[in-house]
């Protein structure tokens, strides 16, 4: 069976006054149906742009996107229309992702109305079903978003994304704006939906603990490039890239007895505009060597575990 989604050498450069901003620079991955791919990285690593490029909300600069085995890199108007029924997105900010002038039911109904071919009664029925699915009581039918809390708003966003019965959903930091107790409710809802409907997720986040909880495979991104790619358990068991290690160690653990050593990395993210060909993490890496100035290749260091670091083997004694 072909993978549901395959992305080959995907690139997205933005033109700025100082040169090209390499937001996504040569990303490859495949994603099987019913699985969850976690994309992790800090702000500016291109993870959100990657999701939006796949959904054709932004045009790609180069590379190929295959969906259900078909090349959809440059879809025709009709193809795009069809794609958008199958691919959806859930946004980070439950406050700006919902039109404040539309009531809960209007927001959820909108995709159904736009699709056409449904009678009014059917649309109302489907909307009620969707609200029940995401756990919104029917008394919110006429409620406006400003009367609701972040968790409920995020449920509206999920219902809207589900309305057209998509196969694939890009989840762009869907829980990072929520409080912990609500975050857990939404994460569980998303897992339930995946089980019931066989959804495929691309889960974009900066939060490694969330990604570990929800993903099958994980991509770690730094400045537009994938630096490490592995199955979730494997990645957390054997973190190989120096950046992934630092990222993992930087998460404050809710355990005052924690003995974990912080691998402090120097400085801050460098500019993504006209980057040099070498390793982009070089300036902050504790293991930097001369070879790092050459382009890094994402290499299969261990079975199904890819790392883009020329010193990976020496650092980790493999």
């Amino acid at each position, binding site marked *: 069976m072909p993978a549901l989604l395959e992305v080959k050498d995907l690139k997205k450069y933005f033109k700025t006054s100082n040169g090209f901003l390499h937001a996504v620079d040569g990303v490859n991955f495949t994603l099987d149906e019913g699985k969850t791919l976690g994309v992790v990285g800090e702000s500016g690593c291109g993870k959100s742009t990657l999701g939006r490029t796949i959904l054709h909300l932004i045009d790609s600069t180069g590379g190929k996107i295959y969906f259900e085995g078909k090349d959809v890199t440059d879809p025709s108007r009709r193809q795009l229309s069809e794609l*958008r029924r199958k691919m959806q997105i859930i946004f980070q900010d439950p406050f700006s992702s919902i039109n404040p002038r539309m009531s809960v039911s209007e927001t959820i109904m909108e995709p159904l109305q736009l*699709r056409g071919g449904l009678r009014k009664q059917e649309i109302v029925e489907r909307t009620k079903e969707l609200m029940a699915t995401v756990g919104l009581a029917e008394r919110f039918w006429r409620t*406006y978003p400003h009367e609701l809390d972040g968790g409920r708003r995020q449920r509206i966003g999920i219902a*809207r994304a589900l309305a057209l019965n998509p196969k694939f959903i890009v989840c762009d930091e869907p829980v990072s704006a929520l409080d912990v107790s609500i975050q857990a409710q939404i994460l569980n809802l998303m897992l339930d939906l995946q089980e019931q409907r066989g959804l495929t997720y691309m889960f974009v986040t900066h939060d490694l603990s969330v990604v570990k909880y929800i993903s099958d495979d994980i991509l770690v991104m730094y400045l537009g490039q994938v630096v490490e790619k592995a199955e979730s358990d494997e990645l957390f068991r054997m973190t190989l890239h120096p950046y992934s290690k630092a990222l993992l160690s930087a998460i404050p653990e809710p355990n005052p007895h924690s003995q974990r050593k912080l691998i402090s990395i120097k400085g801050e993210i460098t500019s993504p505009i006209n980057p040099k060909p070498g390793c982009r993490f070089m300036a902050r890496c504790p293991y930097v060597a001369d070879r790092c100035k050459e382009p890094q290749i994402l290499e299969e260091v261990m079975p199904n575990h890819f790392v883009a670091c020329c010193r990976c083997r020496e650092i980790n004694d493999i």
Partner: protein
Amino acid sequence: MEIKVRKKRTAFGETWHQFKKNRFAVAGLIVVGLVILVAIFAPFIAPYPYDKQDLLNSYAGPSAEHLLGTDKFGRDTFSRLIWGSRNSLIMGLGCVALGSIAGITIGSIAGYFGGKTDNIIMRIMDVFSCVPMLLMCVVIAAILGPSVRNAIIAIAISTTPSAARLIRANILTVREKEFVEAAKAIDAGSAHIILKHIIPNAIAPTIVSTTMNIGNSILSGATLSFIGLGAQPPLAEWGCMLSEGRNFMREHMELVLFPGICIMITVLAFNLFGDGLRDALDPRLKN
């Protein structure tokens, strides 16, 4: 910490709730309502037709017969003021309606599509806003001839650029909101996105400025009529009446006094109303 107080009010209800706290604004609204009623029911309220001459009885002072006296041709000033409210309001509202609709359409297109489209449209708007309004009116009156309609067109053209600029700026911020992206993701077309998602969220400042502009437009209309480019005699219009009365100002002050007061009160009422509306809408603009 955000204090979230959940109120079960619609957007309109919330605005009204804020609005009615401002007494001046409510007074403004009442006066505006009265003036509009007077304009609509002018034929029933006015004791005389606006052009009924009574040459034997010119320059009469206020009396039971002629409440505010008569003018040069013996026309009843009170009736002319009532009829005049029609033309003055039509001028004020007409310019604003026309100018805002044109401005919103042009500004929305420029703001939503951005890039080259935006650049071309906005530069044209810049050119338009360079021409002084009076000059524009003179040109239009010269081409189309002086009349109420042409004065409205002239004033509307000169208010269009600022309306376009205002809505464009708001659209630029709303355009970046994620719900617009969400609408694209569910395959909504550009027209749908602009009408359903962008304009409703970008329109509030435009509503306010439009209301505030009505007063200005009434003034501009009166100005044009005053210099003879707007309403033409024997039509009753406040600016026109001022103009006719100005030659006899020394002897018959009431001829300029009453139309002047009418203009002032109406403009003030619209401005107070607009001010109140801005304050009422403002807290919503912030979030």
